[in-house]
């Protein structure tokens, strides 16, 4: 069965001063819909809730006669209110952000917008954020960090954002970096570090820092690509069958709509240095300029044997191969001045960009080269950063040959939106991929 309505097992709002509270099961308001968002490019989760409130939804704490009023006025519903919600859906385990003890397992009202106001009711939209989202704005980091980058990230997450170790997932890095907080906010600092971090098992730099309902992730692009896909494949075909007919859960894993947002762009990829890159570094201690040319023609960048991809390793267009032969060896130029010594009185480069500049750029650009938008029946087991496998119907008369070999395969969930309302619930996904095909090149 697909698109079933969601059940709100818990939905209550606590006022910003913590003195007043309304519960959906005891007060006169109802939830119109809920959007819940995750994105591997966003360090925190967000949500939007639409509430329909009557004129007697909450008892004002300021009113000595205990009169009832609308949520907006009597609760009062304002920025800083806490929202507890536990939503059950048909396929997944649901979303549980209703913890009374753990303040990181609930949402906070960031904005309140009154959409419609009548004499007896009002429609209010709440924009929600997680705790680390607002806490990030209260923190300025001035400390000095040294050692492995991922150890520094863990320290920031724990000491500056207050996250418990159990809610942090970090892939260990191989490189170290000595750096100052420079009064940056935690997420700004983490975003700066993500581009410079090289995972332990490979030489491919590039990390993502994002929050899902399970916790905070600081994980390498490589580990996302090499992750095991979701247990069920999602299929896209023209067949429409009622669940009663299929007598299985096929319809739960059916893609209801598929839109190709982006499918490669040769000129953009050339300009972004996916195929050939020149990096120039100046070392102020040795007074030397160093040029490094790397191209796919030399089995570098994504042609590096250690470079894992979601699909078949992409080929180099022959027009570019010919171009390399006539000496066109770089398409993008990047420059940097090396940070020598850092805070120490020595002459060692501090996390030299020679190791991450070009390769990191290639990794990020290639990963976002294909983008699909799909809608599926709500599945709260899925999270941003997960890998799912799509089987897309081949446009042929011989369906027995199987799915489309090119567009089918593994995709990364770049972002998702779980949408809940009384009658239906769906999940919208933005999927990204670096290459085509059902078979992937894995690096372990």
């Amino acid at each position, binding site marked *: 069965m697909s698109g079933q309505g969601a059940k709100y097992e818990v939905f209550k709002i606590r006022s910003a001063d913590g003195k007043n509270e309304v519960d959906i099961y005891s007060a006169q308001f109802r939830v119109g819909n809920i959007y819940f968002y995750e994105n591997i490019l966003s360090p925190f989760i967000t949500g939007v809730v639409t509430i329909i409130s009557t004129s007697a939804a909450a008892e004002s704490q300021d009113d000595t006669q205990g009169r009832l009023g609308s949520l907006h006025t009597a609760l009062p519903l304002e920025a800083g209110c806490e929202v507890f919600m536990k939503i059950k859906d048909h396929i997944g385990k649901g979303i549980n952000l209703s913890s009374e003890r753990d303040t990181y397992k609930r949402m906070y009202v960031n904005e309140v917008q009154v959409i419609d106001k009548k004499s007896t009711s009002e429609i209010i939209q709440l924009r929600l954020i997680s705790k680390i989202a607002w806490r990030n704005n209260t923190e300025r980091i*001035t*400390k000095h960090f040294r050692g492995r980058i991922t150890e520094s990230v863990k320290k920031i997450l724990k000491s500056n954002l207050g996250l418990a170790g159990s809610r942090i997932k970090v892939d260990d890095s191989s490189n170290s970096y000595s750096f*100052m907080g*420079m009064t940056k906010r935690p997420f700004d600092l983490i975003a*700066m570090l993500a581009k410079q971090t090289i995972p332990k098992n490979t030489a491919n730099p590039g990390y993502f820092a994002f929050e899902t309902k399970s916790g905070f992730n600081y994980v390498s692009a490589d580990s996302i690509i090499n992750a095991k896909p979701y247990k069920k494949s999602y299929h896209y075909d023209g067949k429409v069958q009622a669940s009663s007919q299929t007598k299985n859960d096929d319809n739960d894993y059916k893609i209801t709509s598929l839109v190709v947002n982006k499918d490669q762009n040769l000129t953009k990829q050339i300009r972004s240095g996916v195929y050939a890159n020149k990096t120039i570094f100046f070392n102020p201690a040795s007074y030397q300029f160093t040029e490094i040319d790397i191209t796919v023609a030399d089995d570098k960048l994504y042609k590096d044997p250690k470079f894992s991809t979601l699909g078949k390793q992409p080929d180099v267009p022959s027009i570019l191969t010919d171009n390399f032969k006539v000496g066109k060896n770089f398409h993008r130029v990047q420059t940097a001045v090396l940070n020598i010594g850092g*805070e120490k009185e020595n002459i060692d480069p501090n996390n030299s960009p020679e190791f991450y500049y070009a390769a990191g750029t290639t990794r990020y650009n290639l990963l976002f080269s294909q983008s699909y938008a799909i809608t599926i029946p709500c599945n709260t087991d899925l999270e941003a950063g997960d890998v799912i496998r799509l089987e897309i119907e081949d446009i042929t008369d011989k369906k027995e040959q199987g799915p489309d070999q090119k567009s089918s395969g593994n995709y990364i969930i770049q972002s998702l939106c779980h949408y809940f309302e009384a009658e239906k619930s769906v999940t919208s996904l933005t999927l990204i991929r670096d290459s085509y095909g059902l078979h992937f090149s894995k690096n372990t």
Partner: protein
Amino acid sequence: MANPDLDFYGLNTHRWIGIILPYNSQQNQTNGDAGFGFRYRVAIMGYHPLDSLIKDEEIVFAIVALGVSDGTGAANRQRTPRIAQGDVVMGIFLDGDRRQNPVIMNVLGRTEGIKYGKGRFQPKTGFVGSTQPADLFDRQESSESHGICSPRAITPSATENKPNIAGLLKSGLPEIPTLGAIPTPPGNISSLVSDQLGGALGNVGDLTGGLDDAIGATQEQLNQALDMF
């Protein structure tokens, strides 16, 4: 609403302003016993805390950009930076928004009114380490329009700046400055001068005649030499 973060010096240009940290925190680099080139630890306004949450030794070194007429050391042309602890310096971040790799571009001169303190962002004396006050200039540490206070010749204090009365009396001059106290020299001054000038000019005429004779003799010798060829 304007972004409150924009009211921050150098946010978009990656420029910064800061103060050189104490000599003790960078002694080896400053003395040339470690590191390379000219580097100074700089506490940067807005980026480093005023308190001791971090140690001075944890603050990154900034390299120094020299002026075009200072020389890089090539062809033995060089001038060392005149930067001391407590100096306020300006610079840019070589790594842009990452802000981990600062370079010092300029200094701001000290004024006479500055007050020294022990805090991280408080000025400190530049007389530290091997830099000690010079005898002539004493402990001056400011750079302003009126210039440095330099030494001048003064009368030895033993005379107490009094006139030499005994010497005046011995020369026949009155104790108190008096108009006409020095007598007029005897005779007509102008005829004395012209007589002496006339004699001198006569000597010049003798010299010219001698020079002509010498030139004539030389010419004759040259002609004889040419005839031989």
